[in-house]
């Protein structure tokens, strides 16, 4: 394993120091990253968080028009309730706080505990579970939250910035999740700093289908194929669950170590399939946004837009990783 780190157990701390130094509009303390201008009186605040190793998610999405605070846990380990409580109290402007939680047992439990313990703040919660690679069932942990998290954070963040009340922000956040689906494919595993070697072995010539964002293996392993075929697999899985129709917001996401040139090759195939179904890529994003350390591979996330969601997606945002309109 070769990594640009000082020590395996200081990675999160060191990276947060870098984040703070690079972005004067953010404040970082006690493992909470929040907007320097928080709390904003009267505005619903958005708090998210999860394990580290998914950068720029979540801390890179803190800023105007998106999150008010993020709680980074250890690598691939959800944050602890104290962080979430701190963040919630730090950014509450009196209008309540929305917790955006990816559907993993650890994230769910820690956010639930925090929500129970936090005092004098109205808290609502939205669970993101967009990954169609995982079967949805009452008897399992359910689907994982992956790329749609970015959509939920951006769109709910824009609505909160407009002054909408907590219930409305939460409703739209849930709607975005319900309208979104993802599927991911890995060319390589990732290596956590603590483990020091790849989480799983993936021989040359094989890829993992249906991976998540924690280096966990996928549902099946198949031979490496041209991008066109891999994209077809991902899009079929998505389309089978949520038919591709009308205007779509599409994220072609790298897993952390995927060169941009390859993501554009993937995007061309995604767009062709969308067009082939008579639908339209109305908005898109291509890049490494919801990552799994140094994993190579991609995921596609699709959200069915309507006029309101499109307007909110287009609204100004100013964060380290997403910025437009100001």
């Amino acid at each position, binding site marked *: 394993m070769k990594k640009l780190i000082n020590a395996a157990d200081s990675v999160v701390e060191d990276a947060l120091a870098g984040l703070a130094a690079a972005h004067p509009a953010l404040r970082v303390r006690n493992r909470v990253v929040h907007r320097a201008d928080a709390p904003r009186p009267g505005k619903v605040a958005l708090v998210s968080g999860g394990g580290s190793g998914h950068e720029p998610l979540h801390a890179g999405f803190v800023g105007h028009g998106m999150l008010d605070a993020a709680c980074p846990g*250890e690598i691939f*380990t959800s944050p*602890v309730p104290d962080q979430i409580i701190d963040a919630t109290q730090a950014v509450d402007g009196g209008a309540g706080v929305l917790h955006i939680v990816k559907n993993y047992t*650890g994230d769910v439990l820690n956010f639930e505990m925090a929500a129970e313990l936090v005092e004098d703040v109205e808290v609502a919660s939205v669970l993101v579970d967009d990954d169609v690679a*995982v079967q949805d069932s009452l008897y399992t942990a359910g689907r994982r939250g992956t790329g749609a998290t970015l959509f939920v954070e951006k769109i709910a963040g824009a609505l909160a910035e407009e002054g909408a009340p907590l219930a409305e922000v939460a409703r739209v956040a849930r709607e975005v999740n319900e309208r979104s689906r993802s599927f991911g494919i890995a060319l390589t595993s990732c290596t956590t700093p603590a*483990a020091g070697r790849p989480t*799983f072995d993936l021989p040359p010539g094989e890829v993992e289908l249906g991976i998540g964002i924690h280096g966990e293996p996928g549902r099946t392993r198949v031979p490496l194929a041209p991008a066109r075929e891999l994209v077809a697999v991902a899009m079929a899985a998505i389309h089978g669950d949520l038919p591709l129709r009308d205007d779509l917001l599409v994220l072609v996401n790298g897993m952390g170590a995927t060169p941009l040139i390859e993501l554009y090759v993937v995007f061309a195939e995604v767009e062709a399939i969308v067009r082939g179904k008579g639908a339209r890529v109305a908005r898109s994003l291509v890049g490494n946004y919801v990552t799994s350390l140094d994993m190579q591979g991609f995921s596609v996330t699709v959200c069915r837009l309507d006029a309101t969601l499109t307007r909110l997606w287009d609204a100004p945002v100013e964060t380290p990783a997403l910025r437009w309109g100001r």
Partner: protein
Amino acid sequence: MDTDFFLAWFAGMAELIRLRRDHLTELDAAIGDADHGTNLDRGFAEVRQALAEWPPTSPEQVLLSASNTLIRRVGGASGPLYGTAFRQMGKALDAPVTPAGFAAAFEAGVRAVARLGKAAPGDKTMLDALAPASRALTQAVQEGVEVREAFERAARAAEEGALATIPLLARKGRASYLGERSIGHEDPGAASSALIMAALASVES
């Protein structure tokens, strides 16, 4: 069983988990996200430190302190789950601690895990070690065997339960995302639960 007994139990857990940290992480790498050993080692080391800094004066205090540390410092799934287990066990414990009281409190802790995790035995989680351990303990106490022997039976049941997760298909936790591919691997949480019970059986009394 006095405060020292409980302190020794947690010291034993911390040691065993440190020893088996990389193994637990490897188990988690196969069907999870390769952090279970690191998470628990960090957490139980802090449990020990907190117990040393603010010495508790009752078994209940030991359990509540450990619970607090685990919930506040570990994160992930296992932090809240183990933290909740020890919290509910602590709350259920009556002084002085008898073998029957211990077994009943332990059972309360295990139930709390099932409730919080919305899991049942057979889902391929820590419950598959904890539930048989609890059953074995309760039964041994009812049979009136020596407490040492009762703990050993519980540890054996936990160990067997952990190994019995190998052929299971995971329905909870990260391993559930793998579907059929979760079969053939021991659940890391069940493995760490077996260590917790092994530490119980090794407390010098």
